[in-house]
């Protein structure tokens, strides 16, 4: 890249040097023929920034302003509540189960789609996108239909003492459903572009299937995987719709952080509601910062694993 760039520059220098002899030098400020005018640039950039500020930045600020309206003391006091702690614990537990499972299944699905030819491949690819296209509320309802009191599975499992709905398993299932595409979607184009020749090379050198995955495939997708996991985690902790349907909103038991925010808000406990909301917003910000650090620190390697 660097070599190319310097090469192009030197060609450009030669050209402009050659032209400078014939044409009068014009203090070096010639308009770039493939770029917009200065005014257009400013207008476009300004429009985009104004829109972002209105739609993204302002609400985010509002969350923090509302949470601290009555001062930091009230903020921490409102967080210090057993139900809030239990909501935080539940959200972390759900993410801790759902994200690793989606990591494994996401890699498996991406691997199958990107590296093999089989019947029904197009169908599987479409299926992976299903959670993105279906409303989260529907995703929750599906589990109610599957495991509810009127279903075949629910009472049968209940007779063995296994509760799915209005309990942790149901919340995990609904979260997994909604967050499944993140890892797989991130990996499929990356793996497709990388092809199978490195894997074939590893096999021909005597590596087992597992060694090939561990030494060749996984290092090649690690950055994409990390991206996918970060996004998956952010969504898993923030999911509202699907979880709301299956959780039952039992305080201190099946309330996740987003559900807890809603309950507090409906009870006119605005400071507490926005205080918990700041934790979720903070999580989103941390995710963004981590993503940016990764891109900044390992940008070259990310580019290298995408190309060659």
């Amino acid at each position: 890249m660097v070599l190319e760039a310097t090469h192009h520059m030197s060609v450009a220098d030669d050209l402009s040097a050659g032209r400078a002899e014939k044409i009068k030098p014009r203090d070096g400020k010639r308009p770039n023929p493939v770029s917009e005018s200065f005014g257009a640039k400013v207008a476009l950039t300004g429009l985009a920034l104004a829109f972002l500020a209105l739609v993204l930045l302002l609400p985010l600020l509002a969350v923090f302003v509302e949470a601290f309206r009555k001062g930091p003391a009230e903020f921490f006091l409102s967080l210090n509540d057993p139900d809030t702690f239990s909501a935080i614990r539940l959200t972390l537990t759900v993410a801790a189960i759902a994200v690793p499972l989606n990591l494994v299944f996401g890699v498996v699905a991406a691997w199958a789609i990107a590296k093999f030819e089989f019947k029904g491949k197009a169908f599987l690819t479409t299926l992976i996108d299903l959670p993105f296209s279906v409303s989260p509320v529907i995703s929750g309802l599906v589990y109610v239909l599957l495991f509810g009191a009127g279903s075949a599975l629910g009472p049968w499992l209940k007779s063995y003492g296994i509760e799915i709905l209005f309990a942790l398993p149901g919340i995990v299932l609904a979260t997994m459903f909604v967050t499944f595409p993140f890892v797989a979607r991130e990996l499929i184009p990356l793996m497709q572009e990388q092809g199978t020749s490195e894997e074939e090379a590893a096999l021909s050198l005597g590596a087992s299937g597992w060694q090939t995955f561990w030494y060749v495939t996984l290092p090649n997708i690690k950055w994409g995987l990390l991206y996918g996991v970060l996004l998956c985690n952010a969504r898993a902790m923030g999911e509202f719709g699907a979880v709301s349907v299956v959780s039952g909103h039992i305080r201190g038991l099946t309330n996740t952080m987003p559900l807890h925010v809603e309950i507090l808000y409906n009870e006119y406990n605005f400071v507490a509601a926005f205080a918990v909301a700041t934790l979720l917003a903070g999580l989103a910000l941390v995710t963004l910062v981590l993503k940016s650090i990764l891109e900044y620190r390992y940008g070259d390697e990310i580019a290298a694993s995408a190309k060659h």
Partner: protein
Amino acid sequence: MDVSIRNVRKEFDRFPALHNVSLDIHSGELIALLGPSGSGKTTLLRLIAGLETPTDGSIYFGPEDASLKSVQERNVGFVFQHYALFRHMTVAENIGFGLKVRKGNDRPPNEQIRKRALELLDLVQLSGLENRYPNQLSGGQRQRVALARAMAIEPRVLLLDEPFGALDAQVRRELRRWLREIHDTTGHTTVFVTHDQEEALELADRVVVMSQGRIEQVGTADDAYDRPNSPFVYGFIGDSSTLPVRVENGEIWLADRTVGLQVNDVPDGNASLYFRPHDITLLDGCGGCIAGTVATSRRVAGTRRVELEVGGSQHRVEIELPIEHVAAERSRIAFRPTRWKVFPDAQDSTA
């Protein structure tokens, strides 16, 4: 290691890629699989490696049936067309990979793997680049690393898929010579795939010419060039001209004239006459010759290439004339091939 391919057939989704191919490769030989794209040459190479399974037939490495073994167990060195270097590993790690993944007592200690990698790097003349990553190397350097990596596992057979396909002409010629030297030093049985006849003829001990999933001819460069055994080989290797002719009682006829050539192993009937543009002799009169009018004339290096329109049906053939010959347009030239071959036309449509 002798490699013997016996009646191998390969189908992809019922589309045949190879039809009952048999081939014996001798130990230490450098062999080229040459053919246009779609001729099945890469499929054959991948079958030898074990990257594909034959639909039918078997492949022997020496006395043992290798087709029962997986690619890992076959111990072949495969150099991929686009090298397939592990992009996140250094050059030394790439070369040492085959040793690193060995199990138990077969796995050499790390420092020995590193030492072997450096030795091989020296062999491929890339000493000092062991800590580079593949994307920091030029195409030719990557090719050498890929070869060193394949040789690190002391393979029984070395297989190269279009080894020079992605390189520019200058580097190509250089690496070609260098591969021959490496082969002569190490003595590996080597098979490489190419669509470049010059590469195949110059580099290989024997050339296997393939077309449409079949082996057309196996032989030395001289065999393939001087004694092509099929119309395809005649047309594919070197320049050639062809004319539709008729054989009657061993005499070759072009329309209603005799050409002045005799054959005795071709049955009577329609046939095709093949010759190379430079294997001709000019004649003055035409009592048994091929005569035509000059359609175009081009100067090519030290000779003059002339396209003649022959006979009423105006078939065009190319011949090579000395520079001194004027070959004016529409002028008449008579000649007779000095080296040529007649292939009878297929009697039915199956061939």
